[in-house]
């Protein structure tokens, strides 16, 4: 397993339970990359109908199970609230929510379910909220919003703890060293060359996040998209209950724009701080602080929650979201080399999508039928 972020840790957890002996290799240790720079979102709300929504719905179920089996990672089924500033945006948002609600996972995509197990919920719950009812959800929201949609399935975890707990519970060995390249014999991968020597394995899973595309023997078109998060002072009672964001976030997530995009995304953590995002920039692997971008995030946060204006911001950090050309994750067997599997390219949704990704990789690796159709995620689609 190359990578000890949330995807690598989830894969290790699922695979060891399937009887596979796993060694995880990461140059920085657990959660040292993108996992350690995110908010821990587990969202269905921002996914348009399609394969990613299916993966998100399955993941949502699995996170609930993981919290019961493993736990200790601040699982908060807090729900999401998407708000619209104008009636026009509200119309678009409610129409979008409507298409999400109508999307159900095709029955045939669940062949692994035994006959006696009832089908799990595979539908998005999305409830329109009229302007006058918004404060029932969020008492400190600004005046003048046109309305919103409540997504009760949206949740949050502390992502670093989640990766660490899953990795620990897996019992997999963690080796802290860099993977330099895959070891290849003919058209099959036989292991990895690391800073501490060669490791041989029957299969290799590439969960190297932002760096997953850069292995020369099996390159993938995965590149970084930078994002900032602002962290406020801790509150005794944080003024934000749900994950709250503006409808613009959904269009930004799916956008192909090169330049800076920002949209207000606000939520509190169990530690009492408020996290403020989200910016998206394509500036390579640069994680330098950019104060004007932070200023925009602050403005959008105050726009949604005026009460935040006189609160102090204590820190800020940047992370790199690994994205693919079609903004879908890359999951499944490599199309060039045997015994190599990819689990990467989750952009800003890696925490949310990790358990279903791990389930898919484990099914493919052990030759079992997958729960979600893996075809749209196949690594060969860019070839």
């Amino acid at each position: 397993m190359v990578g000890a972020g949330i995807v690598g840790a989830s894969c290790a957890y699922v695979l060891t339970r399937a009887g596979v002996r796993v060694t995880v290799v990461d140059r920085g240790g657990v959660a040292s990359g993108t996992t350690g720079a995110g908010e821990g979102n587990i969202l269905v709300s921002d996914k348009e109908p399609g394969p990613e929504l299916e993966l998100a719905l399955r993941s949502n179920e699995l996170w609930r199970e993981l919290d019961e089996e493993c736990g200790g990672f601040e699982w908060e089924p807090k729900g999401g609230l998407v708000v619209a500033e104008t009636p026009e945006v509200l119309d678009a948002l409610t129409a979008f929510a409507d298409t999400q609600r109508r999307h159900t996972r095709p029955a045939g995509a669940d062949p692994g379910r035994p006959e006696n197990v009832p089908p799990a919920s595979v539908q998005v719950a999305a409830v329109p909220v009229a302007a006058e009812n918004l404060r029932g959800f969020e008492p400190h929201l600004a005046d003048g919003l046109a309305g919103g949609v409540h997504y009760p399935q949206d949740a949050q975890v502390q992502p670093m703890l989640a990766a660490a707990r899953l990795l620990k519970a897996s019992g997999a060995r963690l080796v802290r060293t860099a993977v330099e390249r895959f070891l290849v014999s003919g058209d099959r991968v036989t292991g990895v060359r690391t800073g501490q020597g060669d490791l041989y394995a029957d299969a290799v899973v590439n969960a190297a996040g932002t760096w997953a595309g850069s292995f020369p023997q099996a390159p993938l078109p995965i590149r970084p998209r930078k994002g900032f998060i602002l962290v406020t002072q801790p509150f005794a009672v944080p003024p934000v209950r749900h994950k709250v964001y503006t409808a613009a976030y959904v269009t930004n997530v799916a956008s192909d724009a090169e330049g800076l995009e920002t949209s207000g995304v606000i939520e509190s953590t169990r530690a009492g701080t408020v996290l403020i995002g989200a910016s998206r920039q394509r500036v390579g692997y640069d994680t330098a602080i950019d104060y004007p971008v932070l200023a925009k995030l602050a403005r959008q946060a105050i726009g949604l929650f005026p009460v935040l204006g006189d609160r102090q911001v204590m820190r800020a950090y940047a992370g790199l979201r690994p994205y693919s050309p079609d903004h879908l994750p890359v999951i499944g067997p490599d199309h060039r080399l045997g015994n190599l599997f990819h689990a990467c390219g989750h952009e800003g949704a890696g925490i949310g999508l990790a358990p279903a990704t791990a389930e898919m990789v484990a099914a493919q690796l052990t030759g079992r039928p997958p729960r979600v159709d893996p075809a749209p995620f196949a690594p060969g689609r860019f070839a």
Partner: protein
Amino acid sequence: MSYDLAVIGAGPAGLTAARVAAKRGLRVALLDAYATTGGQFLRGTAQPRLTGVDVLLGQRVWAVEKSAGAFLVHASTTVTAATLLVATGAHDRVIPFPGWDLPGVLTAGGAQALVKGERIRPGEEMVVAGTGPFLLPVAVTLLDAGVRVKEVLEANRPSPRMAAALARIPSKATEALGYARRLAEARVPYRTGHAVVAAHGEDSVEGVTVAKLTADWKPYAWRTVDCDTVAVGYGFTPQADLPLQLGCAFSGDHVVTDDRQRTSVEGVLAAGEVTGVAGAPSAVVEGALAVHALVGEPPPRLLAEKARLRRFARALELSYPVRDGWRDWLTPDTVVCRCEEVTLRAIDEARDLGAHDPRTLKLLARPGMGWCQGRMCGHAVARLTGHEPAPQKRPFAQPITLADLTLHDREDNA
């Protein structure tokens, strides 16, 4: 208004640099977070008038940016300057011990600042503990303020190296003798190889446990001393947030400079404790030298003086290290990070979860995530994971309100 030079920090280094630079005809702004100039060392003393310098007080600089060839120094106001001198000094280094989160436990520097700046007596009966020669002037300041100083505890033992270094600098030797005489007159015992290893009390400090220490600071032979306040200081950590933001090269915890105080970043100078803790006389020399990076050649006399004082500082650093035995003072319930109330037990759990370095430890257990952003606990947290304490990047050198942050949105970055 754009300046030739912005000096951040109005302590000995910054004051000297601002004065000399103004005399040389440079347009100078001098910024400091406090309401008066002088910094920690000169606080409470009469301050000279600085002619030709724009003195901007109460300015807590939270970030410095480079934009269009100039530096933007962000505080309540934003100052633009062609060159920057960082003279932000250092803050107390502390190590945790059971009860150090009780009211009545102060840093040595904090206790001194209360007396010098606020004319407040920090306590009635006090113990001063830690390591380094700074404990002596702190104890004397407290005595002069009318505090009953019961003991001064130096965790290290004096070394021949230190005696030799002192002998080479007569002014320092005289200063040390003066402190020793004052303590002796007041019958305050100065004990080496001792430390406060715990503080006790219901709502505030009522007493401390004092232990003898082995050479690597493992405690033995405990006793209790009644007191209402304890001041602890285990040396200093350079306050280097701004040079870190700017990407200046570091060596250990301090900024690297050349003989004219130039850092690795063009246009950024640094002087005083931020370049390595060496005391006020050294800061004054470096403040003057920094101006010579802008105008003229450095006088050989100043260069020689700097070298001499730096050698002394190096001897100090080697004579008063923090030894790892303090970890034996802690119990599982001891709070290591006071802001986030992270105990040693929580830290050990995070290490068991795979936190092998300070950053991962912070992500898993939150030490250093709170108000002080690791300034207090950073040293201890690094050592608990077996790492050398390293400077931590802080995008906000000071907290700032979200409303104030919005003022820094610039369209050229849109």
